[in-house]
């Protein structure tokens, strides 16, 4: 017994020592040269999404600091290496060489206070991150310059391996599974000056009642219908559609744009803020102004590198850029008329949601504003169309003393973050009210945010503003205290039923809402896809109640969210087909398990048999479901419908299709160069109706989730373009 006890004690001591060894770890698990090389590689491959200071953004979780350590402090360096190697860079997991991955991990560990030594990083070392890192970066760590000369070390005697597949030079080894090559534009400015004669200025009256053949704004009309009154293309002849022309767009970054059409001219936005005017019938380039800057990295980019719509007014084309500028360009020549900055602080507050022009004012929202640690708030602002001078701004979080100002728990005003407006609003000229959706409070999860059980006004709300003054008329909070990145920011569609003026909107939770747009009063809702975030809704107010485990969440707890951040609905906008009172809605059916720091794993929505995409139509008068179909691939475009009873939509797997709006049957489809992504439009020139649609990559959850889950779908990593279809000239 004595000996046995000694053995047991010895074993216990050994176990204890092992535990201590794990807890204390070993310093110097990587070299300074690896950290230097990692700094270069990180800034090239990772910083666009995770930010140069590793603070994270949107779908990209923080890689340094307390939030990182909460999750990764309990895991090993081998696990961190494995995860980064398999999944990064975004959409191109395992595409870099092993030495570069080791360098990037070394740099991340160093940024969290781990010290370098003489031993190179070992991808298989099971060292507890919590034992070597504190989450605190050494002073000035992120300010050190990234030395391009500090490249990744040569591997196996081979020439230096390109750290970026896009910049490989002849003879360099590139470990990169995708066939594409990227080039980033290097020259900016007015590359081709236009000389468009007899341009018809866009008037207020045209914006109120758009000419039949035009598409002058984001959703075509102020009510946000995405509906064309053209009816030459019908269910009977849509099968004859043929490609009229196609125009390749700049690669890299992200594109989710709405082509604008006026009097036979097409205006396009491309990555690098490349603005082009094209002949809408022939596809001929008429002018081009590359506003810049280029995308921050090679390949498809994140969701904050694009804008979704421009605007036409007078003789100008108005462009809001993701960098937070508004440009007025001469629509005839492409020359810059004026330029103004919407963000008050350098580098904080961008703009991706397009704009709306109301009575000579350019109204624009913000994204990537109001983040934890930055001294700012998000706002909607208005600018004089003639001069660019700011007229008003409305801050989208409720501050102390304002209505809802007590809804942020214990948080002081300067810590009330989020409520971005990344989809442009709509407008009711009779009520003289503009309607905007807001995104969730930041950080997403309540446990990280610190707002307790507060409603976090005016996040995830519908805001009704006076366009003349920016004053709030009313707000309605769709997801009080939201906690899963389930934005309610998307299009507000204005529909009248007799005397009743309603507003319809649907957010990521997949709840289709109907409000009285004169008062903000809740009228009705419908659940369009499975959801398990809410357990009930108040029948009078619509206020949802969260699951208990959501209310009691802990940062290190994996929580289920159906839908996940891909959203039951996302930016792929609805279309209101007025003749049948049908709202046609692109839906997605994926779920996530999520940690407090935003780390996620994905799964298929229960009951969907792996069909991530769903397209459904609801009659808005009584919220009755009309028809629905699902498919494996997610829909990645908005929907348009036409007076010809045809709707169009595109998907992740390159299919662009026409649908009978009366029953959901597919009438015609074709396959394009890459993912069909953006906002299709319909227009006419000389009596002929056309359909235009873009293909592109980049973006957030709508690209990320299917990119991982649809293993069998293979897409080119290039192919950004606009396609125009029409009926044969001599049918």
């Amino acid at each position, binding site marked *: 017994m004595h000996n046995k006890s000694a053995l047991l004690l010895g074993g216990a001591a050994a176990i204890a020592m092992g535990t201590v060894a794990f807890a204390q770890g070993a310093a110097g698990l990587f070299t300074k040269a690896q950290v230097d090389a990692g700094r270069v590689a990180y800034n090239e491959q990772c910083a666009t999404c995770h930010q140069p200071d590793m603070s994270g953004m949107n779908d990209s979780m923080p890689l340094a600091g307390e939030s990182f350590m909460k999750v990764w402090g309990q895991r090993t360096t081998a*696990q961190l290496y*494995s*995860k980064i190697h*398999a*999944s990064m860079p975004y959409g191109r*997991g395992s595409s870099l060489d092993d030495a570069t991955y080791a360098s990037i991990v070394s740099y991340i560990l160093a940024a969290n206070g781990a010290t370098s030594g003489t031993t190179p990083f070992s991808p298989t070392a099971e060292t507890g991150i919590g034992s070597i890192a504190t989450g605190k970066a050494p002073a000035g760590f992120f300010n050190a310059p990234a030395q391009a000369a500090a490249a990744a070390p040569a591997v196996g005697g081979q020439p230096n391996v390109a750290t970026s597949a896009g910049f490989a030079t002849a003879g360099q080894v590139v470990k990169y599974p995708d066939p594409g090559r990227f080039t980033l534009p290097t020259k900016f400015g007015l590359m081709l000056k236009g000389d468009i004669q007899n341009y018809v200025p866009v008037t207020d009256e045209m914006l109120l009642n758009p000419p039949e053949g035009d598409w002058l704004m984001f959703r075509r009309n102020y009510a946000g219908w995405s509906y064309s009154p053209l009816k030459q293309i019908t269910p009977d002849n849509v099968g004859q559609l043929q490609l009229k022309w196609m125009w390749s767009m700049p690669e890299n970054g992200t594109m989710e744009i709405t082509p604008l059409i006026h009097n036979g001219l097409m205006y396009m936005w491309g990555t690098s803020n490349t603005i082009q005017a094209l002949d809408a019938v022939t596809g001929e380039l008429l002018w081009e102004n590359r506003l810049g800057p280029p995308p921050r990295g090679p390949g498809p980019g994140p969701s904050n590198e694009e804008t979704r719509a421009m605007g036409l007014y007078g003789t100008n084309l108005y462009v809001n850029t993701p960098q937070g500028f508004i440009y007025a360009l001469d629509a005839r020549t492409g020359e810059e008329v004026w330029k103004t900055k919407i963000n008050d602080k350098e580098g904080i507050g961008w703009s991706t949601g397009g704009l709306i022009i109301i009575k000579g004012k350019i109204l624009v929202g913000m994204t990537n504003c109001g983040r934890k640690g930055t001294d700012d708030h998000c706002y909607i602002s208005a600018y004089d169309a003639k001069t660019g001078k700011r007229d008003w701004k409305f801050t989208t979080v409720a501050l102390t003393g304002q209505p809802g100002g007590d809804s942020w728990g214990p948080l002081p005003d300067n810590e009330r973050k989020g409520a971005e407006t990344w989809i442009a609003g709509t407008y009711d000229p009779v009520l003289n009210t503009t309607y905007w959706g807001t995104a969730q409070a930041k950080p997403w999860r309540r446990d990280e945010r610190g707002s307790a059980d507060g409603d976090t006004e005016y996040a995830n709300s519908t805001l009704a503003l006076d366009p003349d003054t920016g004053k709030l008329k009313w707000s309605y909070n769709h997801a009080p205290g939201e906690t899963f990145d389930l934005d309610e920011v998307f299009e507000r569609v204005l529909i009248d039923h007799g005397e009743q003026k309603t507003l319809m909107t649907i957010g990521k939770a997949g709840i289709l809402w109907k409000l009285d747009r004169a008062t903000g009063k809740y009228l*009705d*809702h*419908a*659940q*369009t*896809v*499975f*959801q*398990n975030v809410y*357990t009930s809704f108040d029948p009078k107010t619509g206020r949802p109640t969260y*699951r208990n*485990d959501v209310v009691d969440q802990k940062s290190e707890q*994996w929580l*289920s969210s*159906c839908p996940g951040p891909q959203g039951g609905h996302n930016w792929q906008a609805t279309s209101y087909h007025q003749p049948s009172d049908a709202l046609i809605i692109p839906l997605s059916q994926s*779920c*996530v*398990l999520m940690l407090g720091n935003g*780390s*996620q*794993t*994905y*799964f*298929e*929505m*229960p*009951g*969907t*048999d*792996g*069909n991530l995409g769903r397209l*459904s139509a609801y009659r808005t008068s009584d*919220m*009755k*479901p*009309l*028809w*629905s*179909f*699902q*498919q*494996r691939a997610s829909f990645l475009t908005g929907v348009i419908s036409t007076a010809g009873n045809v709707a169009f939509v595109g998907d992740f797997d390159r299919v662009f299709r026409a649908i009978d709006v009366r*029953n*959901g*049957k*597919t009438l015609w489809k074709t396959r394009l160069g890459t993912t069909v992504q953006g906002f299709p439009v319909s227009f006419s020139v000389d009596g002929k109706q056309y359909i235009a649609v873009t293909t592109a990559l980049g973006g957030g959850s709508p690209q990320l989730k299917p990119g*991982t*889950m649809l*293993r069998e779908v293979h897409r080119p990593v290039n192919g950004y373009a606009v396609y125009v279809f029409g009926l044969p000239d001599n049918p």
Partner: protein
Amino acid sequence: MTSRFFMPALLAALAVTAPALAEDYQTNLGPMPLDDETKEFIAGRGDVKASFQGDTLMVQGNFQGLPSNATEAYVWQSAHTGVPGKQIASLKLTVTQSTSGTVSGSLKLTRAQAQALREGNLYIQLNSEKAPPGYMWGPRGTLWGWLLPAHETVGPNVPQQGNWFVPKLHTLSR
């Protein structure tokens, strides 16, 4: 909204008055939560039909496309549809030890388990050699699927007119 709840409510009322009727359920098995690191091992599909009568749940299904051989399958109970739960040790299913095959069993449910079934809170989890059960970067396993009331299904791209089945919304206690 009211009319959409009428049929489930009617079914619930009928269930109270006619408990001897068999209740039919179905699920499709799909990959458990995955990411780019784990999708190589967590893959495959399957379909299961189940019938509950008295206190017995009869399960019959198939699966295919696993990256490694299946090892075991159980019925699990969760607090909500789509939320990972706990394995019920007594509800073990017979599964083909291969990358494709069948999953089946005749299981006695407690009253609480029967209630969970009716509320959409029972699911089948199938594990495999390379994606075993456990908890690493979230709950692990290979395929799962929540048992939901039998409902009409159509293939991809086939439109359904009027209502279509939405789990939970149409999975009221029956």
